[in-house]
């Protein structure tokens, strides 16, 4: 075996015998081998790089927003700039970070491995979906650098179609293209989960991460096309003044809102369901237990996907819909809350009589439980019609959806990145730093967003650039801005030490957590086709009793 050339991005094997080991990272070298790869694991890493880029762009906008709101007067940026900041923050974070985050990175990496497949069913379509994402992202970057959009990420008509002179069409095309990337990912997952499972991997032996991704894919497949056609109509309306959404020409602006939320409400579940899947894996592993009520957790994912399509108009209680449709959508919103509650109870019950380890992924999972519970429970306020009238379009809503989408989805994402980092990189991350980062994120997050609930009930409307008429809102805003800086540090830390660990971290064994699941039964990092021998599954999911039974010694834990 000829000696391998040291490569800055690729962890070098430490043990001589390991040097023989070919894996997906060192199988081929060079930029071309990455850009033309069809390996789902390499595509996952491409996604990881690109969504991290957009995460920090979106985060930078968020920081500017928080700095502007430090004082009541509008003094840091112009009003138009502020409007563009929150618009681009929303668009980047929703369409270019949150929606692809867990599915396209962790899902791409893990779905084939967890079910014992060599790759996704359509590897080239998988690569195509990354290129679509990049084209959409590049267009979005171009749009931002040449002026941006100021409609809010919701594009409400007739403002977006007739009253703003910003780059609606370009942003629309960017989102349209990114949407197809999301559809193709979902399509790949559905077909892969149906057709590529290893022998013995029955539906009830699937890890709950897979169930969560299956449910997510259904939403991506059935929801995204609707936003795509809605964007087409908005662009056509804007270019040609068709009148479809313009009341001056006989159109109905509420039709836009119905079509928009038909996708954009389920889109929240595209963000949170995969995160729930990650949390389920982590909780099972670090309590050393089979998940409590496996089937309930699995089917609650499907229930969320199905009910998620039936609640869109709860964003429109004061928009001018009839009281009776409001009644129906309020009721259905409570129906969709139930499966989420069931999940929380089952995770909690899983801890009972477990053997709980406090490693960084578990800390993220605890953080998720806390933040998601608060986010979910405040959803009950917003579903209650009488209260929604008062708090909708205020900071109460802003706080609520950040608790779900950042507190929930991003906590799950970070927890998952840590949990599977040894598998992805072949290296262990520094445990102490990781625990510290988890703590900082949790504290910073609550300090940023909890005050916003109070602001919202006080009546501060969202998307306000200047609140000099109501200086009483300042103290809570200062708290929120202070929290945001802490949160920023919490998000930067993992990037630093994870990059560090790629070169300096201790090499990871095949299964550093002694975790259940097929992905831990192959090398870290895995070979190009995942398994040296095609696995045959003879055990149930989360067989921690068997894993812990034979060897009585301590579970090896990254230190």
């Amino acid at each position, binding site marked *: 075996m000829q000696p391998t050339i040291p490569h800055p991005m690729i962890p070098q094997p430490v043990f001589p015998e390991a040097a023989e080991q070919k894996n997906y990272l060192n199988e081929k070298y060079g930029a071309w081998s990455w850009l033309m790869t069809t390996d789902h694991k390499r595509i996952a890493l491409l996604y990881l790089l690109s969504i991290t880029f957009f995460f920090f762009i979106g985060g930078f906008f968020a920081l500017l927003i928080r700095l502007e709101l430090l004082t009541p007067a*509008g003094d840091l940026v112009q*009003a*138009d700039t502020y409007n563009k900041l929150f618009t681009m923050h929303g668009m980047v974070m929703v369409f270019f970070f949150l929606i692809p985050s867990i599915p396209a990175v962790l899902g791409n990496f893990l779905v084939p491995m967890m079910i014992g497949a060599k790759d996704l069913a359509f590897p080239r379509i998988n690569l195509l979906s990354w290129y679509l994402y990049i084209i959409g992202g590049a267009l979005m970057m171009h749009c931002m650098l040449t002026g941006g959009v100021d409609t809010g990420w919701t594009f*409400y008509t*007739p*403002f977006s179609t007739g009253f703003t002179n910003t780059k609606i069409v370009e942003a629309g095309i960017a989102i349209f293209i990114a949407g197809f990337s999301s559809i193709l990912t979902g399509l790949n997952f559905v077909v892969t989960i149906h057709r590529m499972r290893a022998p013995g991997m029955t539906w009830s032996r699937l890890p709950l991460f897979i169930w969560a991704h299956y449910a997510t894919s259904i939403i991506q497949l059935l929801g995204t096309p609707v936003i795509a056609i809605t964007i087409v109509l908005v662009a056509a309306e804007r270019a040609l003044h068709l009148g479809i959404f313009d*009341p*001056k020409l*006989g159109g109905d*602006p509420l039709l836009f809102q119905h079509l928009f939320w038909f996708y954009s409400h389920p889109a929240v579940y595209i963000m949170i369901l995969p995160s729930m899947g990650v949390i389920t894996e982590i909780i099972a592993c670090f309590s050393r237990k*089979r998940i*409590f*009520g*496996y*089937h309930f957790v699995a089917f609650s994912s499907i229930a969320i996907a199905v009910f998620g399509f039936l609640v869109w108009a709860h964003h429109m209680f*004061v*928009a*001018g819909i009839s*009281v009776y449709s409001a*009644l129906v959508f309020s*009721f259905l919103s*409570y129906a969709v*809350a*139930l499966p989420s*509650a*069931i999940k*929380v*109870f089952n995770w*909690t*019950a899983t801890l*009972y*009589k477990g*053997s*709980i*380890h406090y490693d960084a992924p578990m800390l993220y999972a*605890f953080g998720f439980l806390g933040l998601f519970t*608060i986010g979910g*429970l405040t959803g*009950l*306020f917003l*579903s*209650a019609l*009488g209260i*929604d*009238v008062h708090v*909708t*379009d*205020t900071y109460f809503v802003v706080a609520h959806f950040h608790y779900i989408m950042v507190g929930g989805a991003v906590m799950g994402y970070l927890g998952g990145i840590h949990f599977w980092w040894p598998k992805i990189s072949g290296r262990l991350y520094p445990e102490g730093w990781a625990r510290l980062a988890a703590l900082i994120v949790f504290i910073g997050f609550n300090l940023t967003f909890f005050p916003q609930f109070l602001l919202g009930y*006080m*009546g501060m*409307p969202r*998307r*306000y650039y200047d609140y000099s008429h*109501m200086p*009483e809102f300042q*103290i*809570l805003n200062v708290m929120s801005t202070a929290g945001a800086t802490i949160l920023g540090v919490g998000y930067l830390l993992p990037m630093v030490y994870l990059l560090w660990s790629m070169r300096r971290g201790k090499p990871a064994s095949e299964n550093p957590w002694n975790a259940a699941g097929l992905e831990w039964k192959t090398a870290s990092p895995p070979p190009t086709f995942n398994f040296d021998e095609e696995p045959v599954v003879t055990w149930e999911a989360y067989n*921690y*009793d068997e894993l812990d039974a034979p060897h009585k010694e*301590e579970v090896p834990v990254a230190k």
Partner: protein
Amino acid sequence: MLNNFPLWPDQASTMASRVDALYIFLLLVTGAMALLVFACVAFFAARFRHRPGVRAEQIEGSNALEITWSAIPFLIFMAIFGWGAFVFFQERTPPADAAEVYVVAKQWMWKVEHAEGQREINELHVPVGRDVKLIMTSQDVIHSFYIPAFRIKQDVLPGRYTVEWFRATKPGVYHLFCAEYCGTQHSGMVGSIVVQQPADYEAWMNGASTGPLSASGEKIFAELGCSTCHRSDTQGRGPNLQGVFGKPVQLDDGRTVTADENYLRESILDPGSKRVKGFQPIMPTFQGLVSEEQVNDLVAYIKAISLSKPINGAKTSANRAVSGDSSDTEGQTPPLPSGSKVQ
């Protein structure tokens, strides 16, 4: 509002205490649920932390538990749902005799027209204790009329009327916000709700009136030549508009609609869409010929001539007593009940 760190907006309408009661109930219920979950998580995490030699005990699950923790939250959810819907229906059902105020939103200001004729910009004066119904439309994009102290909010749409109502209970000056993002100066589209004692309000009201909206509407009605077809007998080429408001109207295509504000508005701007049975489609559209304010005036006028009969009659005249401006022969404007008082 003098306090720099309030946690609660003023309660200044009848709705505020109802919404707050539900809010407190929800805080208690969800607080208890959150505490239960957090306590369990914290207790299990501490009690069952990893100890060398102690293995986790595998538990498959429990259908009884699953049913319990599905059914109990569901019942709680239904209670919240019912209570929330109850409050919502109150918020969405204006009393029949509420005083009417027309609101026209535009980027980035609120134009308010009282039925008695007072016009305000970014301000709304209302007396304590009177039901006030806002009939709102927008000249351009979607706005939202939000008064936190009253706990009410309603989007204001171009091309149609939306309605909200309140009864102020506490004199003072309260925030008025636009709550639906509407462009550059969205955050500048703010104003004040001035709640006054009835006497102060009367004084303000008598200050600068240009005559009731319905009077302006009558003038426009004549100027546009509406009266040549919409005659007050049955000989006109258009339907007689006396007494039409609030009544069912038989349409040419067989449907029946109620002649509410939105119907009147639509019939002025788009007469062909819901034509009254037995009349020819000869009325031209007035889209673009009349401003939003003029449409409001016309609607107010048509309502006035519709409601004049009951006033001359006996029954409802008591709660439709003539307001302070006794020179107003239209006299139909739902007035301030003379005996209203501060709660």
